[in-house]
């Protein structure tokens, strides 16, 4: 398989692995803020921004496109917040609305760009399902650097993030800027989504953020270990998924990353050391025998004795 040895492929592989790690870290924050589906809404909301940025600059410059995507996703987040806080509509309904309306608007714009017959436009379609192979070296470098930046920021403020998530009252007492941290968290979430869109696609990017933390939760009760496991699971599925998708021509990257991630999730669900199905079954059985031995057996008359 010569394609696996080409240096371009190895760069792409490294970048999707870093992307997976970054989204694994960010996903843990989203998981504990109970906002997993927020990433889904925001990644859909990024689509109109991508197309508008393309319409303004008329070229497929990765940097310009992710700026557009980021602005549009942040605007979506702002609208969700506004709808939630100033009407009686609940957060999940607001997310569903923003997701569908923004994506609909994005499709309208995308169709217009496609009809206008611009030679560059074909590449925009790959944003919907993701095509890591279509990235050029400059994009790959930028994506990897931004992913490293995200990992660095989460890593640096680990203690603060922990307080922010689990004990906001105490954090307030310590004079941590909760509002600022919330904005930083949202910006990091949006940044992770937008850099991943080209590799994983608008629709499946959210899976990279949602699935790894859920898998990691089955293995540990410690937040720190959960973070690391989630990053490893995310990075691993990024790398494996990219490799598989490069074996067939025109195979989209996103779905393969997601299915790899899902396989890891299933393994964790069954064999996870802390909450897995097997371990829980064994513990239940042990407890039952123990209770039997302690409470029931002494009082049951046995045949053949006395």
């Amino acid at each position, binding site marked *: 398989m010569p394609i696996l040895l080409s240096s371009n492929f190895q760069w792409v592989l490294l970048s999707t692995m870093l992307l997976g790690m970054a989204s694994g870290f960010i996903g843990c924050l989203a998981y504990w803020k109970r906002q*997993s589906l927020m990433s889904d809404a925001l990644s859909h909301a990024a689509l109109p921004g991508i197309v508008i940025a393309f319409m303004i600059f008329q070229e497929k410059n990765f940097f310009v496109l992710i700026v557009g995507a980021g602005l549009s996703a942040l605007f979506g987040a702002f609208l969700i917040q506004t709808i939630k806080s100033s009407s009686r509509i609940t957060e999940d309904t607001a997310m569903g609305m923003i997701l*569908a309306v923004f994506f609909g608007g994005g499709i309208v714009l995308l169709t217009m760009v496609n009809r206008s017959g611009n030679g560059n436009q074909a590449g925009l379609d790959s944003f919907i399902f993701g095509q890591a192979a279509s990235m050029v070296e400059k994009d790959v470098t930028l994506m990897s650097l931004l992913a490293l930046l995200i990992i660095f920021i989460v890593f640096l403020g680990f203690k603060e993030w922990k307080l922010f998530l689990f004990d906001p009252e105490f954090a307030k007492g310590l004079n941590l800027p909760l509002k600022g941290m919330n904005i930083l968290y949202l910006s990091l979430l949006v940044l992770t989504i937008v850099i991943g869109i080209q590799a994983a696609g608008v629709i499946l990017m*959210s899976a990279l953020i949602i699935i790894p933390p859920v898998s990691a939760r089955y293995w540990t009760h410690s937040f720190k270990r959960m973070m690391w496991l989630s990053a490893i699971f995310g990075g691993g599925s990024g790398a494996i998924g990219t490799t598989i998708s490069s074996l067939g021509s025109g195979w989209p990257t996103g779905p393969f990353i997601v299915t790899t991630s899902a396989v890891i999730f299933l393994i964790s669900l069954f064999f996870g050391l802390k909450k897995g199905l097997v371990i829980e079954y064994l513990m239940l059985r042990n407890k039952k025998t123990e209770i039997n031995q302690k409470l029931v057996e002494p009082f049951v008359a046995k045949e053949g004795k006395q």
Partner: protein
Amino acid sequence: MTYTLWILLTAALVGVSCGLAGVFLILRKMAMMADAISHTVLLGIVVAYLLTHTLSGIYMLIGAVLTGILTTFLVQWFHSRNVPQDASIGVVFTTLFAIGVILIATKTGNVHLDVQHALMGEISFIPLNVMIIPVIGEAPIATFILLFVLLLVILVLGLFYKEWKITSFDPALAASLGIPVLLLHYVFMTLVSVTTVAAFDAVGAIMVVAMLIVPAASAYLWTDRLSLMLVLSSFFGILSAVMGYYFALWIDSSISGSMAFSTGIVFLLSFIFSPKHGMLANRLRPSVVKKEEVKT
């Protein structure tokens, strides 16, 4: 009937059936389940195609309904295994959708064409695919199926209207009265899947989500009465469909995308101007709002 009229009729049927189902969807706080099901029915359609090698409506319907139920069941099961509700929705639908896309890409050849069709629909082709119906004469198949689904939605919602009302507003009371809450949950989700899949072919997945959630949410801002909310929600559905169609013609773009976008416009107007829960109304009577805040 003319070409335009068929399209408008089809879109209006989608608007009404989604509008009715959507009201209960948002009252039960399950808006994101609509998003999930609309993605996973893709898998059902692909599997049905791979098994039967036909794109016939009935197999697709069965496949899609089965995946809809599977989605509901898996989400419920993971939730009972201590996964938070939203995370479990996220895990299930992205995975099933990804499997669907992979099957299309590897087994049927052209991923972009077909998946795009499923996501965005192609309502402009509907009048071309006709069948003969005894009384009316020639009618598009999709329109006919949608009419059937609408009748089904009205029937199921109408027959158990009281039960739906109680389980939506007060599940605990419903359970204590002996109403099978979980069974009703599955019945309702099946209904949503049927609606989704019937609308799927006509307008695509994204548009279904928009039509399910947004008109109902707009209606929620106008009234506190369930019956009125159902009527308003269907009306908003039709309004957005018609508005979207002419907007798409005007700018020459995707019809279903622009219908989804117009539901957003209707919501925006409701959000600002609704006399009951609109932003403007809340601004204009601050004393009332304050009194309510004191009460709670």
